C-alpha cells in the first residue's frame, strides 16, 4: 500500500500531503519523521538524487527538486522500487509544469495546476502508469 506522499519546502513546511490508511494520530509522527529525515540527508543533495530508507516494514524514497523536498512512503508491494517509480513521475510532472526545478514561489504559483496534475497524472502519456494507480489510490 502507498501510505503517504508529502511535499515540503526546504525548511520543512508542508506544501502538499496525502495519507492513505494512516491513522490521524500517527500522521504528525510521520510528518516530523520525514521532515527530519530530509533535514539530515537532503541538505547537500543534487536535484532528483534519490534517497532510500526503511523504517520497520515501511519503505521511504525521497528526493529534492529545486527548493522543494518530496517523500513517498509505502509498504508491501510498494517497496523501494515501486516508490522510486512513483517519485520519478511526480518530479517529472512538477518539472513539466514549472519548466525547471521549482523555487518555492514557482511551486506555489502553479499550485492549482500541480494538484490537478497529481490527480490526473495519467494524461502525461510518457509517464509510467503505476502512478496513476498510486495516485488514484490516494484520491479516489
Amino acid at each position, binding site marked *: 500500500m502507498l501510505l503517504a506522499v508529502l511535499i515540503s519546502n526546504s525548511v520543512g513546511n*508542508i*506544501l*502538499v*500531503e*496525502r495519507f492513505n490508511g494512516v491513522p490521524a494520530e500517527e500522521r504528525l509522527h510521520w510528518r516530523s519523521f520525514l521532515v527530519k529525515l530530509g533535514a539530515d540527508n537532503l541538505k547537500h543533495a543534487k536535484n532528483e538524487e*534519490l*534517497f*532510500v*530508507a*526503511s*523504517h*520497520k516494514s515501511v519503505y521511504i*524514497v525521497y528526493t529534492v527538486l529545486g527548493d522543494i523536498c518530496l517523500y513517498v512512503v509505502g509498504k508491501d*508491494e510498494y*517497496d*523501494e*522500487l*515501486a516508490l*522510486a*517509480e512513483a517519485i520519478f513521475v511526480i518530479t517529472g510532472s512538477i518539472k513539466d509544469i514549472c519548466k525547471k526545478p521549482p*523555487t*518555492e*514561489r514557482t511551486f*506555489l*504559483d502553479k*499550485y*492549482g495546476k500541480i*494538484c*490537478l496534475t497529481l*490527480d*490526473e497524472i*495519467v*494524461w502525461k502519456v510518457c509517464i*509510467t*502508469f*503505476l502512478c*496513476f*494507480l498510486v495516485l*488514484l*489510490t490516494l*484520491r*479516489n
Partner: protein
Amino acid sequence: MAQPLVKKDDDRDDEAEYSPFMGIEKGAVLQEARVFNDPQLDPRRCSQVITKLLYLLNQGETFTKVEATEVFFAVTKLFQSKDVGLRRMLYLMIKELSPSADEVIIVTSSLMKDMNSKTDMYRANAIRVLCRITDGVLLTQIERYLKQAIVDKNPVVASAALVSGIHLLQTNPEVVKRWSNEVQEAVQSRAALVQFHALALLHQIRQNDRLAVSKLVTSLTRGTVRSPLAQCLLIRYTSQVIRESASNSQGGDRPFYDFLEGCLRHKAEMVIFEAARAITELSGVTSRELTPAITVLQLFLSSSKPVLRFAAVRTLNKVAMTHPMAVTNCNIDMESLISDQNRSIATLAITTLLKTGNESSVDRLMKQITNFMSDIADEFKIVVVEAIRSLCLKFPLKYRSLMNFLSNILREEGGFEYKKAIVDSIVILIRDIPDAKENGLLHLCEFIEDCEFTYLSTQILHFLGIEGPKTSDPSKYIRYIYNRVHLENATVRAAAVSTLAKFGAMVDALKPRIFVLLRRCLFDSDDEVRDRATLYLNTLGGDGEVVETDKGVKEFLFGALDIPLVNLETSLRNYEASEDAFDINSVPKEVKSQPLAEKKAPGKKQPTGLGAPPAAPPTTVDAYERLLSSIPELASLGKPFKSSAPTELTEAETEYAVNVVKHIYDRHVVFQYNCTNTIPEQQLEEVSVVVDSSDAEEFGFVLSKPLRSLPYDSPGQTFVVFEKPEGVPAVGKFSNTLKFIVKEVDPNTGEADEDGVDDEYQLEELEVVSADYMQKVGISNFRNAWESLDADLERVDEYGLGPRESLAEAVNAVISLLGMQPCEGTEAVPSNSRSHTCLLSGVFIGNTRVLARLQFGLTGPKEVAMKLAVRSDDIAVSDAIHEIVASG
C-alpha cells in the same frame, strides 16, 4: 480577492518572502467562494479560489459539515462553465469534498452527461468522480457505461474505469465481478497502461478461483506483456501459482521457472528484481535455481543508484536467512557497502555479512561493527544486535567476544527498545551457551546498577532469581540484588525481594543471611514490598530454624500459574465477596481462544527473551494435549497417539469457517472441529457437528460435545468422539453438518437477541486414512536402525504403480499415503533419474517402530514400479504397511 494575490505583481522581486497563500484564512476563502454563484462566471477567478481551497485542505485544514455543504452546492454551479481547466478543477474539488449521499444526487446527472461526452478528458474524469462518490444503487444505473468505458478505445478512459473497478471491488464486489468479460478483453489491449490495470483487476476478481488464476498466468506467460509493471504483476501471480501447485510437482522441473529466469534478462530493472525475488522465495529452492538470481543481484550491489543497491542488499539479506551459502559469493561487494553513506544499506550489508560469515571472520566483523554502531539510529542498532545474537548461537565458541560487545553497547546511550533487545540477547545466550552464563549474569547485574527502565530491571531480577542460585557462587549476586531494595522504586524493590527469596529457597547455605535481609524489608514504605517479605519469611521458615525448603512451598511461591489469565480474570470478576473464599480450582482451565499455531502467519520464529518462560515454547501438540485434557469427557481417553494437521471443511470466505483436527487414540478417534463465525450480526449457540459415519463401518459414535456459544470472530471448538477396534488402523469417510441456533446481534449494543432460529450448514466430508495412524518420527542413521531390527520381521513385495506424471510424483504419493518421515533427504528425486531409493521411518499406532525402504524404477514410458521392504518390531505391522500400499 485576497490580499496576497493582489500584492503579487508588486512583490515579484522579493522571491524568498513571497507566497501567494501568505496569510490565507479559511473564513476569507469561504467568503470568496461566493464567486461561484455569479451569473457571469469568471473561470480564472474561480480556479484561483478552488486552488486556495485545495491548499487549505492540503495543509490539513478541515471544513465543518455546513461549510462543506455550502462549498459543494456553490461548486456545482460551475458545471455551467465550458472552460476545460475549470471543469477539471471542479472534478477534483467534488472528490475532495466527498459529498454525502443526499448531496450526490445534485451532480449525478451532470457527471453522467460528462461520462458520455465526446471529450475523452471529461469521460475519464467523470468516471473517476462518479465511482468515488457513488453508492450501490447509483452504481447499477451507471454500470452499463462503465462496462463500455473498460473497452473504450482511448486508453485513459479505459484505465479510469478499470482503476475505479479496483476501488469499487472493495465496496460492491458483486457488481464488479460481472465485468469479467470486458476486463478480460482489456487484458489483451494494445495499450500497456490498460493491460496493467486490467490484469490487476482481473486477478482481484478471480483471486479465489485457483484454476482461473492458473489459466490466466499460463496464457500470459506465453504471450508478451507490454508494460514492465504488468510484467511485475504477472511474476507475482506466477509465484502464487507455483506455490499452490508445489505439492503436486516436487522434484521435477518446476513449472514456470524458465519464465522467471527469462525475466532476469528483462530490460526494466523493476522486472529483474521482481523475478529475482520470486526465485529466491520459491519454496525448497535449489542452489542451481538460485544462482542466476543471486548473480543479477550481485551486479546491482555496485550500482550507482542507492535504490537499486538497497533493493539488492535487502533481497540478499532475506536469502541469507535461509541459504547463507548461496550469498557468500557476494561478501566482498557487501563489505564495501558497510561504508555506504546510506545507513539503511550499510545496516543491511552488516546483518547479511553476520549471517553468511564464518567463524574466522567474526572478530574482523566485530571490529568493523564497533566503529559503525556509534553513528546509526536505535532501530538499526536493534537489527544488528539481533544478528549478533544469531551469530553467537551459530558459533558458541565465539561467545566471549560477542558477549563483550553486547555488554559494551549495553553501557552506552540508547532507548528502551534497543536496551531490551540487548538484554534479551544476553539472556538467550546465557540460556543456550552454558559457558557464557556467569559472565552474562554479571553483565546484567552491572546493568541494573544503573538502569533507568523499571521493566528491564524487574525482568532481569526475575531472571537472576532463576539462574543465579544454580551458579557456582550464588552469593556474589546478592549484593547487586539487595542494592535495588535501597535505591529503586517500589516495583523494582518488590521484584528484588522476590529474587532474594528465591535465592533463600534454593540455596540453603545462604538462607540465614537472606532472612536478615528480608526482615529489613518488613519496614519498607510500600505495602507490596512489605507483604512479599512477610509472605516469604513465613513460608520459608524465616522465624524458626533453617531447614530445607519444602518442595510444595517452592511450587506455591515460584511455580507457574497453570490457568489462562483471561479465565482467572473472568472468574475473579464474577466472584462475589461472601463467606466462601475464592477457590482457584474453580477456574476453568479450558483455553477459550483457538490454540492453533498454524492459524498464525508463518512468520519468522524468533527466540524469545525475558518475556517468555524458561521452558521451550509450547508446540501445537502440547496445545492440543492441554486442550483435550481440560475437557473431562475427553481427558478420560488418555493421551492421543497422534493429532493431524487441520483440514479445512469450508471454502475460503464463507459465513462459517470450520476445520477439523483428527486426534487418534488406541480405541477412539476424536474430531476437533475448530469453528469461526465470520458474520458480525450473528451469534451462534449450541453449535455441534452431526457426523454421518455410514461410510465408516468400523467406527461407533460415542459422544458429541457441543460448543455453547460462538460469537463473531472468536473461534471455538466442538468435539465428536468415535470408538474403533483397539490398535486397528480403521479407515472411513464421514460426512459433516454443522448445526446451531442462530441469534441476531444488535450492532449498537453488541447483545444477542433472546430468540434464535435453528439452522444447519453443510460441511465437506472428512476421511480417516491409514497415514493418520503413523507418527512421523525421523532417525539420524537409517542404516544402523534398519540393521538393528530383526531381518525375520521383514516383509518385501513389489507393486506396479501404473502411469505417473514423474518419478518424483510417484515417490511423493507413496510418502503421503504412508504418512512416514523421509530420512536422509531421500524424498528429493534428482530430475531425469530413472530409479530412486527412498527411506522412511515412523511409529505406528501401538508405539511400534517402522522402517521402510522403497525402490522406485521407471519400467516403461511413465510406468512406475516399486519394491517395498518393511521392517518393524511387530510382523503384523509390517504386513499392515503392505496392506496400506496394496489398497492405496
